[in-house]
């Protein structure tokens, strides 16, 4: 029997429970391999992984999400799995776009396991109250709805904007929706005018329209969730992973529902980020491979979905009755059709967190103009790609 270690950043109760279930399933199928899971706080995950790469002490296998993939491969943290994948029977379950996010220069470094599918939650009861027929389909409709839904006297705001930790993601989404690419062929490609327009639009929700809670500049996951759950906000952009939490707090259908993200003037942006598992060292590669490929099996994927709401990456799993039979997943399934992979260039994570976030926040706090913010993003991007 061989023992392999597995680093991941599943920390919440539901994530851990699902993980343990998957390990249980794996263990039942592979009695000769023992998996030791080691959980690492999400915010410190890359610090930990990078020092392991730099100073030695890698685990056998590790979880890789799309945003971190480029950095991980760039620091040569992952082992090329192309040959194994090509010889793997399960490969056919994964359409090509599942692999793109986990490949670099044509080489595959990880086996997709699940996906974060971005969508929108909205309060059906508030929409009814405001006389809105359904969820907004475009940014114009979105703005319209925002104005209608906001009622400061009730302490109610239309949209839970995330501009604290992790908020960069939506800033970039809006910029792309307004037609500004970020990176093309490894070169910075921000279209200044479009980007400024996007930042202006997005920040005006807070500054001018005031349809966003005043706490937005520091709101991150927990805050936007709380705002939605306490009824302060009527709309929320996030991914399928938060479905469990929200349906635990309010009634599906009666109080809230889900819809695809609204489309921007130039593009309809919604992220479908495939996460997978890679192998970080050769020592136990056979056992490691068994483990990472196990995540691609339908049972594992569905166990994860049910425990956490994380969508399966495997097309086979998507056909499972447990998904097709549940209407709430409709919006996600629809998103899979047009959704895009997140930006995936080396340094993306650092640039997003260290540049995009503060730059956009400073627009919200009035410390800079959208022009200045876009310039700072462009410069930061140039520095990151240099």
């Amino acid at each position, binding site marked *: 029997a061989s023992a392999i270690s597995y680093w991941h950043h599943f920390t919440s109760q539901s994530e851990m429970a699902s993980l343990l279930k998957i390990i249980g399933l794996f263990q039942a199928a592979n009695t000769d391999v023992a998996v030791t899971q080691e959980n690492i706080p999400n915010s410190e995950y890359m*610090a930990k992984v990078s020092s392991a790469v730099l100073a030695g002490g890698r685990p056998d296998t590790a979880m890789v999400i799309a945003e971190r993939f480029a*950095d991980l491969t760039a620091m040569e943290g992952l082992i090329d799995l192309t040959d194994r994948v090509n010889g793997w029977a399960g490969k056919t379950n994964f359409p090509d776009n599942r692999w793109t996010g986990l490949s670099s220069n044509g080489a595959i470094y990880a086996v997709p396991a699940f996906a974060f599918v971005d969508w929108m939650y909205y309060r059906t009861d508030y929409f009814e109250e405001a006389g809105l027929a359904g969820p907004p389909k475009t940014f114009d409709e979105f703005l319209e709805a925002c104005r209608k839904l906001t009622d400061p006297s009730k*302490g109610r705001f239309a949209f839970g904007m995330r501009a604290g930790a992790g908020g960069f993601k939506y800033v970039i989404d809006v910029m792309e929706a307004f037609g500004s690419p970020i990176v093309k062929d490894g070169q910075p490609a921000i279209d200044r005018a479009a980007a400024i327009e996007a930042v202006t639009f997005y920040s005006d929700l807070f500054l001018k329209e005031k349809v966003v*809670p005043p706490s937005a500049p520091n709101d991150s996951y927990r805050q936007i969730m709380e705002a939605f759950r306490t009824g302060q906000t009527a709309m929320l952009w996030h991914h399928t992973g938060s479905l469990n939490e929200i349906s635990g707090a309010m009634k599906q259908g009666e109080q809230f529902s889900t819809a695809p993200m609204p489309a921007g003037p130039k593009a309809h942006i919604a992220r479908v980020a495939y996460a997978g598992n890679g192998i970080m060292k050769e020592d136990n590669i056979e056992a490691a491979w068994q483990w990472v490929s196990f995540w691609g099996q339908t049972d594992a994927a569905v166990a994860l979905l049910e425990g956490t709401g994380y969508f399966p990456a495997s097309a086979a799993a998507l056909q499972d009755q447990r998904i097709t039979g549940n209407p709430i997943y409709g919006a996600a399934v629809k998103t899979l059709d047009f959704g895009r992979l997140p930006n995936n260039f080396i340094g993306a994570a650092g640039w997003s*967190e*260290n540049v995009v976030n503060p*730059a956009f926040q400073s627009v*919200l706090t009035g410390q800079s103009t959208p022009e200045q913010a876009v310039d700072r993003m462009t410069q930061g991007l140039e520095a990151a790609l240099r």
Partner: protein
Amino acid sequence: MTSSASRYLPFRALGELSETRYWMYLLLLPSLVLILLVIAYPTLYGMAISFREMRLTRPGLDGWVGFKHYAAMWSDPVFWIALKNTVVWVTAAVVLELALGLLTATALNRDLPGTKIFAVLILLPYFLPNVVAGHMWALMLDPRLGVINDILVRMGVLQSYKAWFADPNAALAATILVEAWHGFPFFALLLLAGLKSIPEDLYKAAAVDGAGVAAQLRLITLPMLKTVIAAAVILRVISLVNSPDLLLILTGGGPGDATQVLSLYAFQTAYKEFNFGYASALSVVMFVILMIFAVAYIRMSRITKE
């Protein structure tokens, strides 16, 4: 000649050694070796990185680059903001902690009945990890669920809940408050010890001489506490400048760069952008600033003399 009752030979030999002139150096040896082994190499290595290009995500770029990072720092606006914030944040926090600590120590030093219990209660925050203190206050200052907002609204101080960390100035002030809450017991503890060592007679003499409470504080207590204050301040400044924990949890440097400080900036540069060269240069600058501060401060306050 009989000499020692010790039955164990090694101890006896060591005992005999302790009567030689080398004893003093032998005493220092273990701690010096430990410090040098564990920390000297990493520190020097860490400093050396600042003259190299070292970006984990660009393995190809490795190599010596001289003062490139320092030059880049000169024109990096975030560095200057972080430097300014560091100074503001550390100064404000230390001053506040010192003031609160002095107040506490003075009150506790009156030795009224029950002060022991108050002492225990007041010391509590210092013994919580930064991580805990940070999360605790983040929840209490939460713009929606925060009890502080609720209390302030009930008291009529605020119209509605305030998003403390969404406003640059309020964010800086709030983090300083949290840091003060967490750190002032440290000062209280040290200053109390210092106060206890001031002879009672001095206050009696001052009372007879006609000095009021304020004059006693200004002319006797503070000057007498100088060395204790100096030591406490220097230890505190070092740990504040070096530890990004609390800000990492509370604001992550935001909103904008309103609470960005050097240690946090170095941390993010290293572990988010994987640009170790630049992060190391930032660290070296911090180290140099701290050194200059510490040496000047120790000179000025003469804490190693007396």
